[in-house]
């Protein structure tokens, strides 16, 4: 095995790389970040949302659950009748909208993160098998994948959610499973492309066995496209979770504050108390905007083949 070491190309994402190359990589990312201002905005927005979710109790002293009928339907602080106690106003039961928006980031990020992890893991395994084994197995797997991807996605997600009932776990599982085909398709395509490339051939001729090829050569090369896809899919999951909440099919409202549930509740009062629906919607838009900018930037940095098409 020792001789192979010399032939094996250095993998960009190996944790064993020396500190200097790590710094180089950081500098590389930094350069691209600086050049693409959208990327900076995206990264900052994403970090704000993550920090808001983690430090929610520090950011806001108000409980997202406390009801106070005397202070219900209060407008945002800058409008007449508002109060800086409740910067974004209160909902129909007097719950503080600002703290609910902040705490709401937790459910959205949890759904996005775990959903993407499950979908990514399933898709990686299925796609890698299909791409590596090929033949009839590949045809069968890709047939199933294309079946699922050609369905009206939203309709089936709503259908499954209606059957399974409301819970955080169900929502995560629904997205984790229904989104796996996209990851499988991308993984398979990349595996096929990588397998044909010259360095795999040279690794094989240098005597590398298949576990080494998969773990040292194929997977490090898959990480770029998969991280990019994961960013976009996470943004989509946050969006769809809010949509399910809006239809009353996501997490039960008494368990966690979520943006979708807030929208659904605010919808009833939309003409007289528009802030109840505005702020959770702005939060979804803010998050999704940030993640899309981040995804665009990651795609440019991690996938040099796509860079040309964006000028």
């Amino acid at each position, binding site marked *: 095995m020792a001789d192979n070491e010399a032939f094996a190309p250095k993998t960009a994402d190996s944790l064993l790389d020396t500190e200097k190359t790590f710094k180089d990589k950081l500098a590389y990312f930094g350069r691209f970040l600086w050049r693409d201002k959208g990327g900076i905005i995206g990264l900052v927005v994403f970090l704000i949302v993550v920090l808001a979710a983690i430090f929610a109790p520090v950011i806001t002293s108000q409980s997202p659950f406390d009801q106070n009928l005397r202070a219900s339907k209060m407008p945002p602080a800058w409008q007449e009748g508002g109060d800086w106690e409740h910067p974004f106003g209160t909902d129909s039961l007097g719950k503080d909208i600002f703290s609910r928006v902040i705490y709401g980031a937790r459910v959205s990020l949890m759904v996005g993160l775990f959903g993407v992890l499950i979908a990514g893991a399933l898709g990686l395994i299925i796609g890698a098998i299909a791409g590596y084994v090929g033949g009839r197995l590949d045809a069968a797997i890709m047939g199933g994948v294309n079946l699922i991807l*050609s369905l*009206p996605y939203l309709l*089936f997600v709503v259908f499954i959610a209606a059957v399974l009932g409301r819970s955080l776990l169900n929502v995560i599982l629904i997205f984790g499973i229904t989104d796996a085909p996209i990851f499988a398709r991308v993984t398979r395509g990349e595996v096929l492309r990588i397998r044909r490339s010259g360095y795999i051939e040279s690794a094989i001729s240098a005597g590398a066995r298949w576990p080494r090829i998969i773990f040292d050569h194929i997977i490090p090369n898959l990480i770029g496209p998969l991280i990019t896809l994961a960013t976009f899919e996470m943004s989509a999951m946050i969006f769809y979770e809010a*949509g399910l909440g809006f*239809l009353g099919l996501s997490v039960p409202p008494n368990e966690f504050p979520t943006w979708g549930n807030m929208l659904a509740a605010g919808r009833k009062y939309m003409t007289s108390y528009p802030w109840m629906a505005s702020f959770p919607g702005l939060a979804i838009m803010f998050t999704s905007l940030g993640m899309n900018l981040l995804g665009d930037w990651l795609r440019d940095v991690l996938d040099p083949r796509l860079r040309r098409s964006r000028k």
Partner: protein
Amino acid sequence: MTKYLLSKITQSLVLLFGVVFLVFFMVRITGDPAALMMPRESSPEQIEAFREKMGFNDPILVQFSRFLKGAVRGDFGASLHFKTPAMPLVLERLPATVQLASTGLLMAVIIGIPIGLVGGFTPGSLIDSIGRFIALMGQSVPNFWLGLMMIIYLGVGLGWFPTFGRDEWKSVVMPAFVLGLPVMGQLVRLTRSSVLEIRGEDFIRTAHSKGLKPNTIYTKHVFRNIAIPLISVIGVQFGYMLGGSIYIEAIFSWPGMGGLLEQSIGWRDFPLIQAIAVFTSLVVLALNLLTDLAYSIVDPRIRYGR
């Protein structure tokens, strides 16, 4: 060509069978379809009687073959809420959904493609910036929220458009715009990047150097080439719009299939949900088939290549 057509049709039929299979088993994944469909406060006797009436006690294969036979004839049983056959109820709502989706698509095409073209030819210009902004908004703005905001500000606030229903031509403007915005963004992006890519090709340089007028080059050389990816995106997106207007129809009380779906979830009317799911999938698959066909007519490489 016939062979290509046949293989595409067979694929679609297999997919459709897969949909019927999925829809059948989905209501059974919790184990007890009767408990799922009955109101929560029903007594065990009522549930048992319902189970017997719906044939849920029969062996699963018998049930599936019955479901499949019905599905082929468009018979999904009676809606639990309306007590009348489910399929006619769905078909009744089809025109409204088609009207909404096609208006939305039309808006997306009329606005999105020209902006994308201009953006591709003059990167960095004002119109290009507007185009990139539309693309970003289309990707990021939650449509249910945009719908609510338009109702609050354009509907109630300014009184420009009616806020719900489908009574006059103005009713369709807001829901169609909300439904069309993501597609508009996608079309801007795709048109822009295709133009940028094709502009650098050798045959465009040749056309320039042999002295063709820029306008001829744009219409004959550039536009023909970007038409191919555009057709496929438009076809697929139209399918998604037909199946994905649930929130928008619910918000604007638009009397289409999406609104019916939202209501039938509230009623736990699963036969109706099944009918909507299968019918929508059928429409989407048919559209994808048509897109493939259009694609192969425009691009001979696809017809003969495989």
